[in-house]
């Protein structure tokens, strides 16, 4: 490792919590081992499902002698949370639990996650480190347009932003006109929301005659759904802000598991609290750095609900080498897709992110789309619905038909299969918590 890494912020002038981002590696690994031993012991003592799975493998917590031994531990999967609904995976008595969050499932029971007061402090500290890494600090005015409530996004970002010392405007999701008014009137400098929602704000601001480029807004911290590099370029071009990718999931803690620094070359994982592994999603075997696979996370400090080797279903890789920013924290690549996102259409593998990239190639289109799958006479049919935005709208039928044909040909080219394209009215596609519902699968097998 060359020593010419430039520290963009010296440890002294960022928030004190960020000092942890620069922990020397031997110290970080020792801390991880100590914490993983403690969390395994805690889960073994208090979580019946975990203990029975350890028993099946003939394992006891004392078998963890090194970080490599983590690979021996059983996986936890999302259905474990549903099957033990509501409180079956809790490792703390309710008197120590200060918060419950619920994430809605598309099918069946939701999942419940719990936090002790220490867990909330850890969560807050990782968000502080995320935001500090994005170059935000005391004096910034941060509009938090993640949904407040059962969803982890709103409150998670809120506590962290306050602890950073920023001025928080807790708008929650929805009411785009008011969001834009406050961005403008308050001189907001940073915004947190889903990338889809920010696209909507860009669009709406243009309709209202508000030029986002002229506002003090300089940073956007976007997460809760996968998004692409082309979407980042689109956002940055239209609004003159710096767009950061933040990653997290409720099962682990909520937002704040990992976040980009200003180098934008992968997301630093807060490894002192979350231990990452990459596995082959089919075999469960560990994969080396630089190889794409499913991200598996172990919480190192969670009390109320420790997660051991949780299979995130997110496909990424751990990046080799240290980041130019000087942080010792390992980075993961951006999540372009989830292992359960992949659609097989007439035998061809299709990812929604490919549709997004194809749409962004066409001037004037925004990636507000939805894929609808049906089966007719045994054949899969894929329809891509695209919302017509003011930029796309032309009051001549022929021009719109031309646009439809260009989208069609871009999609055929990128996906390699024939799809139908439908232009639909603005804001007509279903959204939840600001996240677009990308796929509706009506195929009955």
């Amino acid at each position, binding site marked *: 490792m060359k020593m010419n890494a430039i520290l963009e912020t010296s440890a002294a002038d960022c928030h004190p919590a960020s000092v942890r981002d620069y922990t020397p590696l031997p110290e970080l690994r020792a801390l991880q081992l100590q914490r993983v031993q403690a969390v395994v012991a805690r889960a073994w003592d208090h979580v019946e499902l975990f203990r029975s799975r350890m028993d099946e493998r003939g394992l006891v917590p004392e078998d963890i002698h090194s970080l490599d031994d983590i690979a021996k531990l059983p996986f936890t999967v999302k259905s474990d949370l549903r099957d033990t609904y509501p409180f079956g995976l809790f490792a703390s008595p309710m008197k120590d639990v200060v918060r419950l969050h619920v994430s809605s499932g598309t099918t069946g029971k939701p999942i419940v996650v719990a936090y002790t007061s220490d867990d909330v402090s850890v969560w807050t500290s990782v968000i502080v480190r995320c935001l500090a890494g994005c170059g935000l600090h005391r004096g910034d005015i941060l509009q938090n347009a993640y949904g407040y409530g059962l969803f982890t996004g709103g409150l998670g970002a809120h506590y962290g932003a306050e602890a950073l010392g920023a001025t928080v405007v807790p708008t929650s999701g929805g009411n785009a006109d008011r969001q834009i008014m406050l961005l403008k009137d308050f001189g907001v400098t940073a915004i947190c929301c889903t990338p889809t929602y920010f696209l909507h704000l860009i669009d709406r601001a243009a309709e209202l005659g508000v030029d986002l480029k002229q506002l003090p807004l300089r940073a956007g911290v976007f997460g809760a759904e996968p998004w692409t590099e082309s979407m980042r370029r689109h956002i940055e071009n239209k609004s003159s802000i710096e767009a950061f990718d933040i990653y997290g999931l409720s099962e682990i803690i909520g937002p704040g598991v990992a976040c980009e620094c200003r180098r934008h070359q992968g997301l630093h994982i807060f490894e002192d609290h979350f231990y990452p592994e990459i596995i082959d999603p089919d075999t469960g075997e560990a994969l080396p750095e630089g190889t794409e696979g499913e991200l598996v996370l172990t919480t190192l400090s969670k009390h109320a609900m420790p997660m051991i080797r949780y299979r995130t279903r997110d496909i990424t890789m751990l990046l080799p080498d240290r980041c130019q920013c000087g942080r010792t924290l390992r980075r993961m690549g951006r999540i372009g897709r989830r292992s359960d996102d992949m659609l097989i259409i007439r035998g061809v593998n299709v990812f929604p992110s490919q549709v997004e990239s194809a749409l962004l190639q066409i001037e004037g289109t925004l990636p507000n789309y939805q894929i609808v799958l049906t089966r007719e006479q045994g054949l899969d049919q894929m329809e891509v619905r695209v919302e017509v935005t003011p930029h796309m*709208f*032309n*009051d*001549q*039928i022929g021009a*719109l038909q031309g646009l439809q044909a260009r989208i069609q040909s871009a999609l055929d080219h990128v996906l390699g299969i024939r799809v139908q394209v439908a232009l*639909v*009215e*603005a804001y*007509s596609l279903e959204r939840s918590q600001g996240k677009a519902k990308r796929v509706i699968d009506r195929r009955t097998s």
Partner: protein
Amino acid sequence: MKINQISLFAENKPGHISAPARLLAQEGIDIRALFLADSQHFGIVRMIVSDWQKAAAVFEAHGFVVKVTEVLAVEVPDHPGGLADVLGALDGSGINIEYMYAFPYPRGDQAILIFRFADPDAAIAQLQTAGINLLASDELLK
């Protein structure tokens, strides 16, 4: 001479035309002319209304995608061959008609044609030279 026309994008589904009409009624905005241009899957609702600025604001506030375009309103002369005169004035002039539609004149038997030209200024000059009567928006909205 130019008249501001409001266009909305609409899916071809039942009720997708009545919603904008209802909105305008609630706001006390009169619809002078309404024309639906449609393809198999989507349509464009074009309207000439008593207050286009207010209508555009109302539609935008309700999430519609709105476009305001300048059109010309031509009174078809009330004599045999009146329509031929209008079209004849444009023939060979190289002036492109992007689209047109018609509606009955409120005070009489003749029709009013609404034209969207690629170059409205050239069209105004050409029609006026030919003695064709173009309606101003206040006449149309009376």
